[in-house]
């Protein structure tokens, strides 16, 4: 089996055999932040707990990039996803350009997002539309 790394340290964690996005929920101000950092970035509280993020959200805004960026080939749909806990997360959206709409419901998928030249698989997340289900790879 090839070596696997998470694309951003601490962004994902394995729970019950599944990879989930992990943020910090602040027990003082109530806000959930992602990715998790040392203290609550809103109120500087140390009183934070690691929590899985909601797996569905709505598209706040998106754009479609028509040129390659790093390991990604165009078209690249990137968007801000608003989660029910009040957190805004950036992610790629695997969908057809014509089905994209601000406010549409999406759900998260985790898995390999690119493979390094040495075969290392990089693990991350992306979103897919709720309606069509599976979305792209």
């Amino acid at each position, binding site marked *: 089996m090839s070596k696997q790394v998470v694309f951003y340290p601490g962004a994902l964690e394995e729970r019950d055999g599944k990879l989930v996005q992990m943020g910090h929920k602040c027990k003082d101000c109530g806000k959930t932040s992602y990715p998790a950092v040392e203290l609550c970035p809103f109120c500087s509280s140390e009183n934070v707990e690691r929590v899985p993020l909601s797996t569905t959200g709505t598209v706040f805004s998106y754009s479609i990039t028509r040129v390659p960026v790093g390991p990604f080939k165009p078209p690249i749909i990137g968007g801000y996803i608003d989660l029910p806990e*009040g957190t805004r997360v950036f992610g790629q959206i695997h969908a057809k350009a014509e089905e994209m709409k601000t406010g549409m419901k999406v759900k998260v998928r985790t898995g390999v997002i690119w493979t390094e030249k040495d075969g290392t698989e990089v693990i991350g997340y992306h979103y897919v539309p709720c309606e069509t289900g599976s979305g792209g790879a």
Partner: protein
Amino acid sequence: MRDVYVLGIGQTIFGKHDSLTVNDLGAAAALAAVKDAGISPKELKVAYCGTMFSPPTPVQSILFHLGADRIPMYTVENACASGSSAVHLLFQEVALGVRDVGIALGVESLSAFNRKFGKGLLAIEGDLQGKLALTMPSFFAKLCNRLMEKRGATIEDICYPSVKNHKAGMTNPYSQYKTEVTVESIMASPMIADPITVLQCCPQSDGAAAVIICSEEYYKQHNKKAHRPPVRIAGSVISVSGAEDVSYDPLAMQVVIKGAKDACEMAGVDPQKDIDVVELHDAFSGEELAAYEMLGLCEPGEGVAFARSRAVELGGRCPVNPSGGLLSMGHPLGASGVRVVNDIARQLWGEAGVNQVEGARVGLAQMLGGVLTGIESPVVAGIQILMI
């Protein structure tokens, strides 16, 4: 706080200077500034330099070319607001009475950067969103989409600042581009991130700018250009954002709104009435369209209507980027924050040539830097208000 004056300005032509180092570029701008100020480089008491990608200690190496040495020197990095930060820190030292005169420089060589790291869209190393392919054009494409959804902007509105600024840049001797563009030619250029095409983006540039700033007393003793009305830096603010949640609206970035409001209060001006000319960070055409209302030049939500009224063109209520802006002038990242201050000084002195805003008495210079997402990587706005 003491009054702070602009004694002299200098810059290189912005564009491709492949054979010049940042030291060569910086020295050319610094030399032009001390000559414009009419003082010896030995007079300088402190130096600041804004840059993003230069080798270590560029300011010492640059000023060595002029024999300016053995004074405190600092290089500051604040993304596209690096130059604004150099100006701000020098402003503070003079205002607080620490020094009487100093130089703020900004310099960048994207040619040198590209030789080292290869060409392509700049993504931020180690940034979660950058790793997922968020780039500056893709961020501003979201802003454009939101301008169309929430403000009723059309493609013509989105392209308007680029058309306006490219036209202005044609007659600026320092600008990188000398080509007029139309909405048609803009939309026919390669698409980067819908609806942003190449001709809605500022170019990659090499260049430097420098400004000599001094106290009132020093100004009275050393100013040799009696024909110039004394130009004062009346307000200077560096504004930084923080963590944001789903309430964040990129059309109402508090970092810009509050930064501009604070700078206007400091200078005692009403942006809708008093500001006669603005030079701002138009890295993307749509960014300028979104900025009018955030800077307070018009009411919130009225930015598109303000643009359609042609208030931001030469002859209008408050011309924006009569230099040609980043879109046509070019954008040597660290230099632009100093360059916008220089261009406002030039306007207030009445030395802007065919791009002169008649009777300009108050001007605002703005830069915005950072990843702009407001989620993981906060952004910084630098704002200076100059007046006569």
